[in-house]
């Protein structure tokens, strides 16, 4: 799976959406090559170590983080940086984000963890009304750019209603925050460091299904990957597939199967959902003439709808088929019906064929 996700496209182009891009490679590490085999959980752990080490005013906190967190992503941090910088909070999501905003407003790097993305809703008001609009409504006197909210999202095979949801679309409706989702260990480390150092509040959703399953060569040092820059991870001519996070590995498998049937798919990892890289997606769709979007969240009102609308606006005359969306069904995330609910490989493959033959 790691190999499947390895980037096949050309070197990343620089767009300058994010000020964080400027610092990439300052330590001379090439983010695309070399490193040790690492899983996504350890990659996150490394990024947090680096963030705490490189900035004495950075803090990691959340429910149970000091003993390593439920997914062990924060293991060892308290031993190295002490309990004043890595600490547990009470079970209080609204408080975690609220305090994070205050901490960040005083010029600190607040790295908050919400234990599951499903638990982020008690903090929704703080994120939407406080964090996102702080800079705007104070005429740039104040901001909480140092705030990064990490949270594991998505299906895990048997998580049921409250440990499986993908709430990214709610946050993509909020100008003022960034929303970032990595697809692999190498991406996770570089993107998380960019998010932490980005001067805007960021919600960083981690695909929990991949914590241990996705293993990749990850450079050991400090490196960052640009935000708001999509990446073509597989080149093709017949159809463009856009996705993010854990869904990309499912889409990759569908691409491989489609290729056997003579359909050449181009796969794009959006990486940053807000603000998103329309140009890369547009350029790809101009080349292929077809677009398919896939995400785990329910199809109605999902972020796929936004991508679809934007691309139709920009590429109406170039499109040779309606934009296809293969997403979660419009039901609560089910317990025993998870395989039925999810946008699986075969569903995507079928949609690829239907779109290409349209």
């Amino acid at each position: 799976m790691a190999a499947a996700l390895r980037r096949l496209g050309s070197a990343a182009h620089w767009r300058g959406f994010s000020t964080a891009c400027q610092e990439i490679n300052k330590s001379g590490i090439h983010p695309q090559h070399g490193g040790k085999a690492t899983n996504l959980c350890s990659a996150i752990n490394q990024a947090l170590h680096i963030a705490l080490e490189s900035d004495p005013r950075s803090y990691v906190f959340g429910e149970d983080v000091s003993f390593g967190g439920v997914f062990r992503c924060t293991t060892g941090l308290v031993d190295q940086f002490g309990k004043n910088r890595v600490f547990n909070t009470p079970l209080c999501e609204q408080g975690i984000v609220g305090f994070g905003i205050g901490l960040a407003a005083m010029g600190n790097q607040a790295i908050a963890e919400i234990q599951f993305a499903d638990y982020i809703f008690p903090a929704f008001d703080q994120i939407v009304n406080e964090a996102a609009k702080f800079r705007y409504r104070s005429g740039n006197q104040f901001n909480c750019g140092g705030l990064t909210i990490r949270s594991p999202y998505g299906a895990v095979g048997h998580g049921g209603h409250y440990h499986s949801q993908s709430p990214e679309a709610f946050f993509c409706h909020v100008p003022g925050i960034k929303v970032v989702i990595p697809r692999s260990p190498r991406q996770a480390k570089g993107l998380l460091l960019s998010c932490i150092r980005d001067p805007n509040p960021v919600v960083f959703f981690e695909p929990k299904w991949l914590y241990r399953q996705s293993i990749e060569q990850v450079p050991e040092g400090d490196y960052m990957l640009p935000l708001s820059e999509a990446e073509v991870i597989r080149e093709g001519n017949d159809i463009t597939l856009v996705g993010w996070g854990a869904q990309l590995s499912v889409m990759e498998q569908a691409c491989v199967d489609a290729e056997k049937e003579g359909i050449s798919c181009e796969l794009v990892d959006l990486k940053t959902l807000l603000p998103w890289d329309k140009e890369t997606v547009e350029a790809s769709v101009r080349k292929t003439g077809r677009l398919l979007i896939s995400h785990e969240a329910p199809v109605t009102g999902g972020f796929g709808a936004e991508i679809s609308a934007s691309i139709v606006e920009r590429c109406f005359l170039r499109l040779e088929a309606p934009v296809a969306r293969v997403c979660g069904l419009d039901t609560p995330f089910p317990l025993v019906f998870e395989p039925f609910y999810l946008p699986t490989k075969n569903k995507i493959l079928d949609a690829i064929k239907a779109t290409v033959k349209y």
Partner: protein
Amino acid sequence: MALSRLSSSSASRCVDLLINPLAAAAAAIPRRLISSDTTPITVETSVPFSVHNCDGPSRSVETTPKELVSFFKDMATMRRMEIAADSLYKAKLIRGFCHLYDGQEAVAVGMEAAITKKDCIITAYRDHCTFLGRGGTLLECFSELMGRKAGCSKGKGGSMHFYKKDSGFYGGHGIVGAQIPLGCGLAFAQKYSKDENVTFALYGDGAANQGQLFEALNIACLWDLPAILVCENNHYGMGTAEWRAAKSPAYYKRGDYAPGLKVDGMDALAVKQACKFAKEHALKNGPIILEMDTYRYHGHSMSDPGSTYRTRDEISGVRQERDPIERIRKLVLSLDLATEKELKDMEKEIRKEVDDAIAQAKESPMPDPSELFTNVYAKGFGTEVYGADRKEVRSVLP
């Protein structure tokens, strides 16, 4: 423990533990008290209640031999069920997230003994035993845990979402603290209906730090709702000890203006006494907080071994000193309500009942795939799926 016996007993054994209801005959003929006897006896709680803004109940709890034996039986069933759920989870027959109640049984059992099924109970995700206490069956429990049709939520809820409408059990809620305002809403409806019922809203010491609790408490007190907020303090909010998470771990005092009572939550009789007192109080004066001092033997959920943030000595210490089942066992034996062998046999019988329920639950089919689309809205949308692997959904408005 001070005991005052109102009836005589003798050394003669009645093997027929559960069948003999002839209490009067037992008094006439010199025989030992049998366990189905309903003659009142009084037992004093080992620990006094701590009170806040109220006088609190007496330490002398009235009970009966029959009740004590039923406490033992019910708690032993709950314990056995949770241990079996642990094995089923490890065998991957239960999926999803699963939180076990073993150690805390006295709260579920004592509470039920003080209230009726017309009173409402609402709790968080550690809900298996509360459901059983409300009259749910082992088959419904195991079927729900394994996502089968015979489950109490038709297999659609899983471990965290048990419900039983006919006995006022409002479930089974996944988000920490979110059930408390909801419970106060139930009490609000009860106040309107004027039928002298109350709602017990349960939450853990972790949820006690959620803002929702204080918002709901304010409204409930302002409007004198018959709401009883029960803090099941098992001393760890997930993996964080209470003193690391709460400035004041005296949860019964944290209602400030609302009265509170701290109860030995490992003593079913103390729980019963407190709940009885709380119900009377709530109907007359409005909300009260009950802090149940209890302990969970398992970790927070099945992914938590439960030993990284506390010592094994601490757990075994509680098991030895305060275990709710052993406490009742000792009481039953010291009152000579049953012999050690009779209790052992009862446990064997329970074990068999649990195993039978599991076997039966395994036979129950998974819900029909069409159930994925039911209950999303009141009326079905006439949803159908088609395409390869049912990729596309078509729905018709009713």
